[in-house]
């Protein structure tokens, strides 16, 4: 007992009370943090009124999406979770390592305990149970029998996700016999996710093209790319969004300008592309010139050199910065509320304008902040995990 406590005590001493000044700082911090934490808890447990979030949960999640069409969103969530489970299973195989067991436990808690504690209605709670079950079932099934599938099928897996994405957009928007739900009716978290995912998916190739253009040997390409990148990076996003809402209509022939929602999505995309281009350019710059020359002298042509030699290495270097840009992009979607779109923050502000929930700003902002924090932190964690994995691979492949 004593010798287990001792290291802790000595560690505490080393970390907190190494010098008198350190001790003073530590005591000050502990007192300050304690007071802050106590005030926060006091507010959260006694003064906060979470009815504003509960009563408007549907609005916050999907905005004005027609109620009778919401089964499409549930279907999409189920499809996405199923696909995620299967992908997970295929990647991991039969075993359940410790990290997977932990993830499964967290998912179970999220899927079962969270809906119950939020006070959602019974049918919605059950839907979440089913969806969580589907995810874990997909993991289990794909883990058990995934290896038995023909290789050609498993190769199709990366293709399944883009198809699923397009299918999802189709499900959300309607058409082909489904009732159309216009972009102006999308809102809340749904709109935020659509805008962010679209912009992330499209800005990535665009950014790579711009980065290659900026490092190109052809002067015209170089100038155009540089001009574009510097112009975009010099302007605040809000002025570009403002330009998109107020001037794009003048620039395109009448009636051809996309809907406001898509217009904002394209502006976000073009904006993020310039920053991604800079991240990728740094990756390209880090690549020794010899790589190009070696690949060319092996007889690979330009496109092959780019695809098989240059880009894989450059993108690996650029990965952390690029994901950092994606995180910023996800946060930047909040600016849509300033140009009158009902993204998550826009809906939240509309909710708070409802006199019934006046002065309940803190609760709503806190929920939004936690949501954004979780999404962004998850992206950051994912990026670090991927980086780790890629680095391990690169080390192994080297002789």
């Amino acid at each position, binding site marked *: 007992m004593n010798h287990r406590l001792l290291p802790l005590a000595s560690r505490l001493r080393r970390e907190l009370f190494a010098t008198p000044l350190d001790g003073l700082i530590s005591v000050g911090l502990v007192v300050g943090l304690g007071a802050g934490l106590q005030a926060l808890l006091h507010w959260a447990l006694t003064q906060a009124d979470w009815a504003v979030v509960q009563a408007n949960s549907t609005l916050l999640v999907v905005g004005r999406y027609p109620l009778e069409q919401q089964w499409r969103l549930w279907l999409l969530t189920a499809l996405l979770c199923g696909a995620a489970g299967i992908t997970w299973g295929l990647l991991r195989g039969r075993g359940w390592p410790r990290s997977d067991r932990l993830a499964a436990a967290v998912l179970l808690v999220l899927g079962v305990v969270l809906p119950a504690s939020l006070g959602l209605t019974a049918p919605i709670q059950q839907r979440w149970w089913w969806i969580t079950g589907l995810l874990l079932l997909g993991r289990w099934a794909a883990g058990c029998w995934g290896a038995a599938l023909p290789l050609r099928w498993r190769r199709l897996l990366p293709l399944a996700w883009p198809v699923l994405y397009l299918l999802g957009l189709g499900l959300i928007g309607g058409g082909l016999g489904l009732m159309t739900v216009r972009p102006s009716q999308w809102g809340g978290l749904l709109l935020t996710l659509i805008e962010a995912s679209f912009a992330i998916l499209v800005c990535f190739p665009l950014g790579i093209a711009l980065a290659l253009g900026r490092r190109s040997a052809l002067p015209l390409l170089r100038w155009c790319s540089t001009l574009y990148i510097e112009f975009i990076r010099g302007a605040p*996003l809000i002025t570009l969004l403002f330009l998109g809402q107020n*001037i794009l209509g003048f620039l395109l022939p009448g009636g051809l300008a996309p809907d406001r929602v898509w217009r904002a999505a394209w502006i976000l995309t073009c904006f993020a592309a310039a920053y991604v281009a800079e991240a990728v350019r740094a990756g390209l710059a880090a690549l020794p010139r010899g790589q190009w020359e070696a690949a060319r002298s092996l007889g690979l042509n330009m496109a092959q050199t780019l695809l098989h030699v240059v880009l894989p290495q450059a993108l690996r270097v650029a990965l952390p910065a690029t994901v950092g840009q994606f995180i910023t992009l996800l946060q930047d979607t909040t600016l849509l509320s300033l140009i009158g779109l009902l993204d998550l*923050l826009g809906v939240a502000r509309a909710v708070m304008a409802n006199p019934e929930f006046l002065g309940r700003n803190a609760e709503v902002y806190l929920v939004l902040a936690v949501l954004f924090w979780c999404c962004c932190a998850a992206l950051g964690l994912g990026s670090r995990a991927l980086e780790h994995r890629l680095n391990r691979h690169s080390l192994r492949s080297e002789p």
Partner: protein
Amino acid sequence: MNTPWWRNRRLLPLLVQAVVGLLVLVTIALLLGNLVRNLSAAGLLLSWRWLNLPAGFDISETLLPFNAELPYWRALLAGLVNTVRVVLIGLIGATALGTLVGSAAFSSNGLLRRLSRTYVELIRNVPLLLQLLFWYFVVFLSLPNGTAAIQLPWAVLAKSGLYLGSTQLIDGVWHGSLRITLEFAALLTGLIIHSGAFIAEVVRGGVAAVPRGQWEAARSLGFTPGQTLSRIVLPQALRVIVPGLNSQYISLAKNSSLAVACGYSDLYSVAETTLNQTGRAVEVVLILLGTYLAIDLIISLLMNRLNQLVQIQER
């Protein structure tokens, strides 16, 4: 041996550039053509004369004297001065905070180290706009007024503003030698705390880049940890920090345009009002883009000079 034309090393680049140039030119021509046609259809051909017309609206707080009789360009100038004001103070505040927090990551005190990490991770993963709205609508707008105002030895925080220096209450209204409006205070707080987290990361990266031996050498010469950091390590870390600071400063300047969310009359907010009252969308957007580009360029130029200084000292 005859190389086919698509393998011709001299023709091919020219051809590619010609195609790209043509595409770019045609796109620009189409866009401009549409712009001119649509604008003339709406009777809004490009013109700058309206800049000299009286603005007709007031601005809540300005450093330059402004009233509704003065022309639009004066209004925009007053907005620009407001932007510069918040950016300058914000830069100083964020740099101070960022340096403190970034240095705290190397403290011998474990609690301080963890707190520094927590602060950075917390702030970087929450959108700035959300933070600004929080500061304005949740924190500053819920300050009490009159006698209930929060009174500190050197300041009074009330709903009618923050009063610094010698303060007194006359007829239920606070007076002080310096009054800061809640809008400005909220914007400044939000910007400093947000940019501070990013600058802390830059500082941390810079300090981490200084070889470990420098720390040990300084300690063995008898410097205290604080002295080591401020006299030995930070000056060397500047070489890595300054380029990183440049981009953080630029993004702080651009982020100041979110002032519109908390009611502070910066350049963007005045420009938006101007657009409404004149309908001159294209001109106003051109002014906005040009001005922010100029601000960015000035910051970049200054930071490049600073960078040169730092690099020369290093040799």
